[in-house]
Structures are given as C-alpha cells and as structure tokens.
C-alpha cells in the first residue's frame, strides 16, 4: 500500500541531497546539477500531490510541473552559458575562486 507519504519522503530526501550538492560543490557545473536534482524532487512532490487529490488541484499539479520543466530547461541553458562565459574570462569554473566582490 503506497501512500502520499512514501512519495513525499523520496521527494524530500532527493531535495536534501540536491541541496547538499548545490551548496558544497566547488565546480559551477556541479552546483547546477544539484539544482536540477532539487527541481526534480519538487516535480516529484507536485505530481504526487496531484495524483492523491481530486478536482482542479489535479490538473494544476501537472501544469506546474510542465512549467517547472520549461523553466529548468531555460535555467540550465543560461547557467551553462554563464559557466562558459566565466570560464572564458577567469579560466576557472570553481565557485570559490570567483571572489572578486570579496573584500
């Protein structure tokens, strides 16, 4: 018997793993991967809510996920372009090296 809690648990664990990755990775691309994982976990949660509910909330979950996927695609493209641009000017994509604003 699978309940909503099962899916929410997986979503929460996935989100936390993504968060840890996004916060701790040195490489900008690694950070991006963490963010993608977080977005995925949110999608999972939304779809789970949608599946276990009735009425207009059901379609809303799907629509939200569709928008999140769209935004994630745009975000990935821009983030990778940023990484490439940063690499071009600084010869590194390591986020702790990018400290020009630090005093």
């Amino acid at each position: 018997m699978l309940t909503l809690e099962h899916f929410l648990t997986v979503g929460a664990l996935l989100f936390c793993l993504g968060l840890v990755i996004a916060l701790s990775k040195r490489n900008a691309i690694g950070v991006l991967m963490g963010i993608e994982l977080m977005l995925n976990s949110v999608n999972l949660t939304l779809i789970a809510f949608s599946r276990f509910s009735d009425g207009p909330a059901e379609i809303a979950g799907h629509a939200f996920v569709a928008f999140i996927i769209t935004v994630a695609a745009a975000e990935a493209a821009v983030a990778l372009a940023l990484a490439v641009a940063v690499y071009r000017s600084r010869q590194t994509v390591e986020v702790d090296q990018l400290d020009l604003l630090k005093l």
Partner: protein
Amino acid sequence: MEGAGVNIAFYVLSILTLVAAGGVMVSRNLLHAVLFLIVAFIGVAGFFVLLSAEFIAMAQIVIYVGAIAVLILFAIVLTPRSVRDNSETAMVGPAILLGVALATVFLFVIHDTGWMTGAGDPGLSASDLGRALLSTWVLPFEIASVLLTAALVGAIMLVRSEAEESEDVPDADA
C-alpha cells in the same frame, strides 16, 4: 495504489533514484556525476509513470535526459580536463548538516501531517493537460514561451566573444 508490483516498483525506483543522487554527490569525476544524474532523472521519470503521469514522464526524459544532461555533458567536455573534478568546497560540512536538519524537518512534517488525500483519479491524459495549459494556465504558458526565448537569446549573447561578434558583420557576398 495497491498491488505487489507497484510496491516493488516504488522501492526499486526509490533506491535507484536516491543512490544515483548520492552518486552525484560522491563521485570524483564530473562526468560520472552527470551519468549518475541521468540515472536519477530516469528514476524520477519512473516515479511519474508510477503516479500515472505518463506525459510528464516522457517530457522529463526528453527534456532532462535528452536536453539538459546533454547540455551539461557538452559544458563539461568543452572545459579543459583540469577543471573536471567534482570535489567539495570547505562548506561541505555545514552543507551536510543543513541537509540532514532539513531532511529531519521535512520527514517530521510529512509523517506528522494528516494529509487529506482524495480518491485520486489516474485518468489524466495529455490532452487534459493541453487543454488546461491553453485555458486556465494560458498566461503562464505564454510567459514561459517568452522566458524560453529570452533564455535562448541570453545564452547565445553570453557566450559570444568579441571576435565572433566582429565576424557577424554582414558581408556583401554572404
């Protein structure tokens, strides 16, 4: 959702997805990390199928696995070997601490709340979603398309070097 098959599928997918996500964290090679990420994406797509959201599952595979993962692979392969390691900054300790704390809170909330679950009608098809997107959600839909265009233009403008911009002066014979 009942039945042995669904239960087995859920646990297999959970283990697959979470192990793959952990693989993204621990693997030293950035490319291995991306491949783990792809497995995690496929696992999440499997969850979507399990939750009878076939269309979203397919979109997940097409966009995340087919496009985003490929984009990341490109970005990695095109940066030199020296920046291809996947090590952590000094913030790894606090990050893990935060993650564990957040996970605890999440799990507490998840299991403590009495969720009002409905019957859950699994028959939500792609055409239902399409109709919703073009009626209820038409404004966000259009905004998303504008966002995609903006992201496209922005990504191209970001990576252009000055040499390339000078190349694009229209020639007489081009």
